[in-house]
């Protein structure tokens, strides 16, 4: 490739911005940093990078709002969300709104470069995440009817508590179902699970 792939980084912590820039520049990327979401959205309207690495807890519009705006603009960049105060519904929300993956800070630095490269290489080749369960996903036939109900709740962005209330079971039981579902589908984590089941193969 003649021209370096561009990456936009959004984080309100200067040390994280600088460190990501140092690492990604070393890996041959062209990195631009933003301290808040508005600056990013404006920049992306000017021209689209190959990848965006976006902290969810930023001042101004949250990372999730930014994701929604990028999605509304049909931005083709591969977006990674990250957070230091992550929880499962947040991760699920990010994936539903088009993030490729979700990193809980502090994440493994060794992993991020590989993930970014893979996402850039895959961009445009993989069908996008839809709003509902795919008609088929790996491990689907192994799920019990109850597990499928729980999965629908999780993929819909419900917390364990909300899912439990909707299905008339305890949040703890939801959690047990979730662990079994992840085991059957072979998902690494909740974000990965939602991505698998919402992606039309």
């Amino acid at each position, binding site marked *: 490739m003649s021209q370096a792939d561009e990456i936009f980084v959004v984080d309100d912590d200067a040390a994280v911005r600088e460190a990501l820039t140092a690492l990604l520049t070393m890996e041959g990327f062209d990195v631009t940093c933003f301290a808040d979401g508005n600056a990013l959205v404006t920049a992306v309207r000017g021209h689209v990078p190959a990848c965006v690495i976006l902290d969810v807890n930023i001042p101004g519009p949250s990372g999730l709002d930014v994701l929604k705006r990028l999605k509304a603009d049909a931005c083709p960049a591969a977006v990674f969300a990250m957070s230091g105060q992550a929880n499962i519904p947040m991760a699920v929300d990010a994936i539903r709104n088009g993030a490729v993956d979700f990193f809980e800070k502090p994440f493994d630095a060794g992993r991020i470069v590989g993930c970014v490269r893979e996402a850039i290489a895959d961009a445009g080749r993989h069908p996008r995440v839809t709003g509902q369960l795919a008609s088929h996903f790996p491990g689907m036939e192994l799920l019990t009817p109850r597990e499928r109900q729980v999965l629908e709740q999780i993929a819909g962005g419900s917390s364990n508590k909300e899912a439990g209330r909707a299905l008339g079971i305890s949040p703890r039981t939801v959690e047990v179902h979730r662990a079994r579902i992840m085991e059957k589908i*072979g998902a690494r984590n909740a974000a990965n699970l939602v991505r698998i089941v919402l992606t039309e193969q």
Partner: protein
Amino acid sequence: MSQAAISPHPIVGEGRIERAVPPLPHAADALLSDVLDMAGEAIVVLDVRACISAFSRAGEKLFGWPAAEALGQPLAVLLAEEDGMDRQRLEKLGSGVHVVVGRHKAGHSFPLTLELATRQSPAGPHFIAVLRERPAQPVDVERLARLEAENAHLARLVVVEAMGPALAHELSQPLTAAALYLQAAETMLGPQDAAGAMIGKARREAERAGRIIRALRRFVENRPPESVPVVLDLLVDEAIDLALLGRSPRPVIARDGAETGLTVMADPVLVQQIVVNVVRNALDAVEGLTEARLWIATRRVDAQVHLSIRDSGPGFPAAVMADLFAPLQTSKPGGIGLGLVLSRSIAEQLGGSISVEPGGGGMGATVSVVLPLARQASPKAVKRSA
């Protein structure tokens, strides 16, 4: 004042008068006031803001406040400062009998029992407080000291609990940055470089600290731990290495069952924390002994895995056993007393348990950690996780 006073406007909600609730009719007012005055005890009726809306005659006597002046004041004026009794505190206390310190209008304080009754209303809980002077008790110095110690304990526990998530969050940004910088330096130097290899190790340690923080955050937020298939013996071997770091001389460690490859469903970081904790305790127990030995074994019992760690130390004295799983109790100089508490709590979250055989009389202690065995995963899942 000859009659108990009752505030004419029961105040509902924050700083506004709810017109929808009419004031009590006069007859009812007078009756309530008579009833209050007949009681031999100080009775205080509080509105939703925990301010006094009725005050009995015995109350006037006990506290030196004329009822007319007491009305509308917060309950806190009747109590010594350290008992700053606002609405939140009252809600926390809830119904029941509590020991507090009263304050007379003249300034002196005295011991009181506060009997609290709660009544729910659409605007929130209302309280009725019955206050009785406590007879002076002979000072039990030992009991006081114990109470004080318990109090200090509780305070520390609250601090630890409050600090956990904040600390985890504050540390996550610099740790993320540190790991990224180290990764960059590692890449810059390349795999052949000796310094690069060392920086790689530093990066992996920073990432391990990150994983511990993520697990800690899940733990303090009471989020269920991650549940993935974990080969227990690999984890145990790693944990032994970690626990041995910086120890010399090292005791003889007999390891049993390491080939069995038993798999548990658990959060690997949490399980490792448990094993490190327990192994460290065992190492402490044998430190300085000529016969310093540890026996660490894993075996399968039905649908569970038993990990036992026995040491050649003196065993746990009975006094220590009693408080073994109480938070912030420690028999070690410099110990915080959270190791076993956290370990047990983690084990229980994972659906397991921890038990201790105290040993003694020439026998060392044995700590057993029980964890549920992973169910036979579907062939598909096995292939994926391999």
